[in-house]
């Protein structure tokens, strides 16, 4: 589906449509479960310790060079962060993962920077799966599609890594995610609580009266 896109915008639209597909969510959970198992097998150690090379270029061709190199650098930093956070990550159940993939989008109180990071991670997952499958259809995949997939993977990872880098103990280097790009998780938690309180008050009012209520009709205090 992604590899048959007709324009770059069409490709990005197809990726976003895929994210709402329950089948794709199941696939993502399987992928994350596999990664969690790999943690027990030192798989992430191997991934993080491997030299940044030409894996993506080998998969998709030399036209993806600069974007592929930066993408691989982000993947290495991500693997290293997961290795540091491994005790937390390896305890996740498939149910936890399902919640994590969608929680922000089921809860409107979640601040937009968190949603952007989660969306970036999910777009990266979709792009990564397409990158892995592209060599199977090399003759049919246009060069621009290959490049757009790598750039989609890179951009999604960049957004997601802003959240990972902001997590205490992740140890993401500043040359991967500069300090000024990191999220203030404590401030976002306060913002979430303010939003949640307003929403809950309006929900209770509408449940009681049956009438519409506007939780954000006046500026937040």
């Amino acid at each position, binding site marked *: 589906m992604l590899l048959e896109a007709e324009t770059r915008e069409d490709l990005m639209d197809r990726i976003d449509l895929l994210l709402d597909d329950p089948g794709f969510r199941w696939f993502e959970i399987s992928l994350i479960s596999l990664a969690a198992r790999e943690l027990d097998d030192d798989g992430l150690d191997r991934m993080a310790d491997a030299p940044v090379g030409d894996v993506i270029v080998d998969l998709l061709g030399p036209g993806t060079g600069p974007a592929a190199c930066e993408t691989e650098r982000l993947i290495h930093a991500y693997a290293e962060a997961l290795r540091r956070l491994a005790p937390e990550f390896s305890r996740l159940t498939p149910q936890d993962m399902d919640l994590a993939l969608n929680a922000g989008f089921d809860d409107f109180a979640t601040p*937009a920077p968190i*949603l952007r990071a989660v969306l970036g991670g999910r777009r990266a997952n979709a792009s990564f799966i397409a990158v892995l499958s592209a060599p199977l259809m090399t003759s049919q995949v246009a060069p621009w599609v290959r490049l757009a997939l790598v750039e989609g993977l890179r951009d999604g990872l960049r957004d997601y890594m802003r959240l990972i880098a902001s997590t205490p103990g992740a140890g993401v280097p500043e040359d991967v995610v500069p300090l000024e790009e990191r999220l203030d998780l404590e401030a976002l938690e306060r913002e979430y609580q303010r939003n949640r309180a307003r929403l809950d008050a309006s929900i209770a009012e509408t449940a009681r009266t*049956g009438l519409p209520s*506007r*939780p954000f009709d006046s500026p937040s205090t």
Partner: protein
Amino acid sequence: MTPGSLVLVVAGGGKTRIAVVLEVHPSVAVVAWVTGTHRPSHPHVEVDQNSQAGKALRLDKPRYFYPDHIETRALSDLQRRDGRASPQLRMHIAGLIGSAPATQCGTCRRST
């Protein structure tokens, strides 16, 4: 009905508006409805009719989301319609109620 579903609501003035479902509770949903009125000085998300979001909402001209058009509604007030709002559009609507910087992309715009 789930977050991202599209519904019709009767808004102020008795006009029927397209709305995006943002949360669903036992008897109440949180929705954001669109209007054709552009208030450039207010925080808003613009959805172009030719964008993916505009096509999903089946718009015939640009429409706008505003923070004061986010409402809690009784489920019995909502009429289901086909289609879904993308996670990107829902993220941009979420940006209306917080401190997130303005965002711009190919499918919808947020302005402050």
